């Protein structure tokens, strides 16, 4: 493993995974002096019995819960302030979130307001403006996740913030709260986590600490995606998906998103495919491109993708081809499984060669770091999903 000369790593999230994980919450709350968390949950929590599982787990403990179900549609500052007022008036001392996506963004904004006393979270600036520790926050993670829940990012209503302090202190993955078997959600979450993991393991000099989360995002997402064909989606598949997305959040942490992530955002902005689908079709190209640039793909990535037994006999020179092939055959399987709804390449999503330049230009605007050549190569390869041995 090549090491960087300079390395920084931080991940304050403690993961509680598996059987009766919720029952460990009171102990963890107690250790952080939390007695009265405010629960934000989504509207399905009661119907899906997740609420009952949570209250059951908190029984026979000293934890008193206040619960609200914020409306699902968009986040605005009025809602943030209303929740902050409840938090203060009812004397809460932590935030507990059961659900994913926008609900977690909302909770992060509420936390900024109640912890700093500043009414406008946007005032902290986009990057690392928050200097202080915030109130304890716990996430009860669902399988239907966006991948950003455990990260230090918030993006909502013209506000975009990143800070390590926005990451939850606890991420709980429990069989009873991982959510209903929704195949589409599992596929999306799995692809996102897979892409976050693969991107973090590529590059000439890896960070061996981030590797812990990256390798696990890859192996958990692969295991989940490969068994997503089962209907209804099995409990273990959903558990793996949920933890893969927590890994994804830990990889992103408070850092700026990487190249693959940004290019995926630009592709999704065309409206022809979702962010997760965009990441999926870009993945094989990302691996090939990286291998071309640095000459090799790490053995750990290959074993995370295919398992140690199958990957260990591969010579260094063949690793990138094998990794890209494993990803392509995964996409092909998912295409068949979803009867063509999940694209294998950009053509499946309706792109033509002429469309790529516009995406590339949009990508350039997001960073302007001279990466647009690499972006174009990735887009061209992703158009037909062909492995490109030459790299260009």
């Amino acid at each position, binding site marked *: 493993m090549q090491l960087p*000369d300079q390395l*920084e790593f931080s991940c304050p999230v403690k993961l509680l*995974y598996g059987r009766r994980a919720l029952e460990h919450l009171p102990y963890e709350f107690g250790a952080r002096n939390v007695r009265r968390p405010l629960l934000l949950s989504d509207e399905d929590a009661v119907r899906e019995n997740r609420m009952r599982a949570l209250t059951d787990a908190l029984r026979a403990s000293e934890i008193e819960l206040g619960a609200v179900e914020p409306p699902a549609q968009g986040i605005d500052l009025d809602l943030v302030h209303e929740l902050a007022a409840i938090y203060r008036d009812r004397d809460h001392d932590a935030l507990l979130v059961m659900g994913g996506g926008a609900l977690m963004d909302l909770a992060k904004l509420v936390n900024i307001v109640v912890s700093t006393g500043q009414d406008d979270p946007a005032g902290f600036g986009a990057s690392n403006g928050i200097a202080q520790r915030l109130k304890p926050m716990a996430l009860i993670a669902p399988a239907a996740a966006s991948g950003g829940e455990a990260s230090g990012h918030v993006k909502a209503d013209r506000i975009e913030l990143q800070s390590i302090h926005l990451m939850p202190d606890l991420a709980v993955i429990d069989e009873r709260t991982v959510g209903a078997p929704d195949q589409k959600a599992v596929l999306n979450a799995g692809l996102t986590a897979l892409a976050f993991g693969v991107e973090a393991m590529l590059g000439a000099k890896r960070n*061996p600490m981030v590797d812990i989360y990256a390798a*696990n995002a890859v192996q958990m997402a692969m295991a989940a995606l490969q068994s997503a064909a089962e209907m209804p989606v099995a409990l273990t598949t959903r558990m793996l998906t949920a933890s893969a997305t927590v890994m994804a959040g830990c990889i992103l942490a408070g850092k700026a998103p990487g190249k693959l992530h940004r290019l995926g955002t630009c592709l999704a902005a065309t409206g022809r495919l979702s962010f997760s689908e965009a990441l999926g079709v870009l993945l094989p190209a990302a691996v090939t491109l990286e291998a071309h640039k640095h000459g090799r793909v790490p053995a750990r990535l290959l074993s995370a993708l295919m398992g140690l037994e199958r990957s260990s*006999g591969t010579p260094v020179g063949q690793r990138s081809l094998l990794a890209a092939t494993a990803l392509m055959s995964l996409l092909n399987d998912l295409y068949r499984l979803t009867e063509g709804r999940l694209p294998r390449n950009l053509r499946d999503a309706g792109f033509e060669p002429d469309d790529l330049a516009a995406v590339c230009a949009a990508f350039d605007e997001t960073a302007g770091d001279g990466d647009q050549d690499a972006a174009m190569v990735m887009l061209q390869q992703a158009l037909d999903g062909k492995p490109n041995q030459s790299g260009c």
Partner: protein
Amino acid sequence: MHMPAYFEYGCGVKIVAGHDALEHIPEMLARLGAKRPLIVTDPGVAGAGLVDILTAAIKDRITIGGVEDGVPPDSSIQTVVAIAEAYRRQTCDALIAIGGGSVLDTAKGVNILVSEDSDDLLAFRGSGTVKRPLRPLLAVPTTSGTGSETTLVAVIKDETRHRKMAFASPFLIPDAAVLDSRMTLNLPPVITASTAMDAMTHAIEAYTCLAKNPLSDVGALNAVKLISRHLPQVMATPEDAEGRLALALAATLAGMAFGNSMVGMVHNIGHALGGVCGVPHGSCMAMLLPYGLEYNHHKNGHLTADLLVPLAGADTYARTPPERRADTVIHMIRELNESLHQACEGRYPRFLKEVRNAGGAQAVPRDALPRVVRAALDDAAILFNPEDLDYDDYILVLEHAWDGRPLDRSLIRRGP
């Protein structure tokens, strides 16, 4: 991927590593709202000039409130109270602990007292008693071994009652661990080798014992790989700063792994051997590691087998028949011990009978083994070992380790 039905994983410490990582300290403290750190260390570290390197790296950009360099080898309440007093006298607002485990434990204790504004450390003992964030604390390790910079516990001795007291709380985790290659550049060969083997043992026990989980597994495998690749290089070229930094990172990775997944019988017996015969911890680990893997083989041989990848590479793993992989791993660890023994010109012991104390006498006489066993029976690391050991089992393992013979596996008792 090994998914237990339930596991927990977390590591709250921020890691900052590099060849000039110390220079980042002033801005890190500024972000934490601190202006006047107290430096806590021991006479050995100060005498080796490491505190001077630290102060030179930061003094232009931050006011150092004071340097307390009197931490004894076993941190004690008395020392903690005295240093807390100094902290207050010099109106400090943060702590930098530079040194090994006892320095850091002392600094954690000091941090409890100064943050809670108390003089009664006993009131905060036990698990979860410290319930709120403390003052900023940075850890600067000076050996690549213990991994204590990543843990949420502190062990401090109560001299009046002759007891060791444990403190555990998520708030005891240092705010950051600063790994700088200059801190270990001048470590003597024996210390370099044995502390690296301590880290190796943390990683291997975390990977092969009962509390393993998929996150600590990746950290452990990465640590084993970094150590097996860089330790021989650093032994041959001690001024290899890249290698030194790699070993420091490996030790921290291993610390993160065992902080979550604990250790097993190698540490269990090693703690006893250290306590009874005064053998340095790292040497105990190196000598006992092959025996721990042999003794547990019937329970976790398939996990030991996986270690062949980081130790020898994926090609060797693929070439070796599955049933021979664990044995190859154990054999490679013995060979590594052998080569470190040679690199240290015999001052790195391979077997218990070879260990000499400062006066040159045998440190572990054979008739001391029963006393070692009685101490091992009182050490909690055994809880996480895959197989149980009673008195006779310990004697079996220790006698083999004393002679330096591989463990005769037909003599290991298994359950019905």
